[in-house]
């Protein structure tokens, strides 16, 4: 993968000669294309589905605003407001997706991939605010039941329902394993549930005049939204806390690494996610002291293959050590041995 001419010339000091320059260019070129191919497909698909959903929602919103202004209906305008928050969440996801592609630099060695997770965080937090708003509105309606225009509500609700279902179908596939899209999707789903509430309570108001149904449904729905928001937040927090991704069992991973020939034991192992589709492994591995250069090479290849194949870890850095004193790290966060002994101690 490397331009070898740059390597051989490198050792002649740090005067950073032209060889480096050339090598650097060739290098950048190679990686600029190679590494993101699979990635780009997925991200391109996410982008397209977000754009489609945005067009759907924005179109419906414009229709609502025009209709609201012409008819003077406040409920149409209010619903347009809901659509605006959906559109905003999609725009946020798109912006994050765009900027997360920026290349790595000396100030950001991981690039901006994390932006997607931060966008999901913002979307989750704004959902919390929306839940608060819905509950407050429900409380107000419980105290003074407003006059409800059943027929119009029903119409708006049905139309909104259709648009939201379409947007949800568009986004659903991309949302798997992409927190960013999931954040936008949850806004759509929240709005969808809101539309269901409008339709159901509109129908009941029309049929029986049960105005109380509306605030009750609002409460139920805000609870539903709350639960899914909490799930999203938990995933976001796990990433931001540098937690181990859900699909990785670190204990098993360490055990598998220790089963490799020549490995004595694994310590100071860390697995974390830069973004949900990009996991990082770093570990210190104590190996048998009589291993030769070739063995070490082979072992490193095996470690990387195992990490990639079984756990889809995209970025691996392993430090092979010959003795336990060889490791001078002051912190041994997760120690495989430590865990073993903890397990053996009866709880």
């Amino acid at each position, binding site marked *: *993968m*490397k*331009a070898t001419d*740059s*390597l051989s010339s*490198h*050792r002649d000091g*740090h005067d*950073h000669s032209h060889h*480096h*320059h050339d090598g*650097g260019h060739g*290098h*950048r070129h190679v*990686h600029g294309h*190679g*590494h993101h191919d699979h990635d780009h497909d997925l991200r391109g698909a996410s982008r397209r589905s977000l754009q489609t959903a945005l067009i759907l929602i924005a179109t419906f919103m414009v229709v609502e605003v025009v209709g609201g202004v012409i008819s003077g209906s406040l409920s149409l305008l209010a619903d347009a407001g809901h659509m605006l928050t959906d559109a905003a969440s999609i725009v946020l996801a798109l912006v994050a997706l765009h900027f997360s592609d920026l290349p*790595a630099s*000396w*100030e*950001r*060695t*991981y690039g*901006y991939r*994390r932006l997607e*997770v*931060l966008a999901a965080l913002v979307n989750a937090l704004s959902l919390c605010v929306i839940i608060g708003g819905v509950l407050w509105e429900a409380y107000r309606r419980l105290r003074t039941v407003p006059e409800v225009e059943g027929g119009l509500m029903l119409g708006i609700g049905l139309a909104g329902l259709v648009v939201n279902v379409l947007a949800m179908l568009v986004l659903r596939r991309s949302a798997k394993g992409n927190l960013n899209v999931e954040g936008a999707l949850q806004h759509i789903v929240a709005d969808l549930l809101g539309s269901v509430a409008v339709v159901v309570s509109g129908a009941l108001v029309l049929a029986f005049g049960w105005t109380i149904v509306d605030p009750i449904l609002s409460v139920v729905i805000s609870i539903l939204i709350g639960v899914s928001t909490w799930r999203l937040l938990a995933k976001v927090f796990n990433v*931001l*806390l*540098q*937690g*181990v991704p859900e699909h990785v069992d*670190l*204990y098993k991973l360490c055990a598998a690494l220790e089963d490799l020939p020549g490995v004595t034991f694994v310590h100071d*192992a860390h*697995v*974390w996610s830069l973004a949900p589709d990009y996991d990082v492994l*770093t*570990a210190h591995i104590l190996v048998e*002291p009589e*291993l030769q250069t070739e063995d*070490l*090479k082979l072992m*490193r290849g095996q470690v*990387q293959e195992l990490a990639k194949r079984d756990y889809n870890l*995209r*970025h*691996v*850095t392993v*430090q*092979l*050590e*010959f003795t336990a004193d*060889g490791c*001078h*790290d*002051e*912190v041994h*966060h*997760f120690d495989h041995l430590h865990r073993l002994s903890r397990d053996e101690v009866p709880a």
Partner: protein
Amino acid sequence: MSDSATQHHHHDHHDHVESRSLFSSHDHDYSGAGRRSLIAALVLLLVHMALDVVGGVLSGSLSLLAHAGHMVTDAGALIVALAALHYGGLPPSTERTFGLRRLEVLAALFNVVLLWTVASSILLQVFEVVGHGHAHSHEHLGIYLLVIGALGLIIHLTSAFILHRSMHHSISVEGAFRHVSVHAVESLAIIVSGILVELFHWDFLDWALSLVLVAVILFSTYRLVIKIIKVLLQAVPDDVDVYRLCSALEDVPGVTLIHDVHVWALVPGYNVLTAHAIVDPDSTAEDLMRIRTEMLKTAREEHGIRHTTFQLEFSAADCHEENHHVDHLMALSREEAGKG
């Protein structure tokens, strides 16, 4: 500090040392302060906040509410410091290999979001008041401002005294003092505007002052937010120059090239480095150990790195990594391009 130190032998001496981290910009440094004095300061703060809120609601004073809003930051920061002391010291697990150290950063973020909410609600109220005249304000607004401002001043001086006593040998004394002095000045401003409102009925002073206090809130969080976002983005900490770090590592005899280098901060002050290094293929086991030791020493002593993982490779083909994020070579050519 000492009670939690015994539970995990790996974490004895360093865990709480850098709890200050995030708040150093905000001039909070609670690391040396005992839990008890933190709690005492928190209680005083909450009492003062309650006074401000009650006074603000009774008198309709926006500046009192704004001042209470500012104290939400402090109360939040104190609670965060306490929580970080507690949870940050929990041992790592297979689910969280870094423990819950990052919680401190997320809690600080939560704190900021809370503050912005408070600030924006105060702004909304100011607009309402300016729009509708001063219908809400109490006839004795000036008295309220005067009394509560004076109480606030007393409380700030007391908590300064408490914190000062327990942080006696800490560098944080200066920071804590500066912070408390901001509050004292705010309290003084409230007292002065109380007098003016009472004497001349300059009721507008109240909302003008509240605008100033909102500005102080936003200003005080600005740098903190930048810091938080950098940490969450896994950005290189400000105190590390990756370029120089790479050069220094390449100066270690036996090292040919550093590539795929990453530096990030778990929390501010706790910097993590991972790098792949291509070394002389003829290196013996002893050479490799020496190289690693020297690299570690360089990173730790000269570049403030706390946690390192070096992957030593014998040739470029030896690296199976699909991504080479920041390549030392790449930036070299960039710098050269920049000069030309």
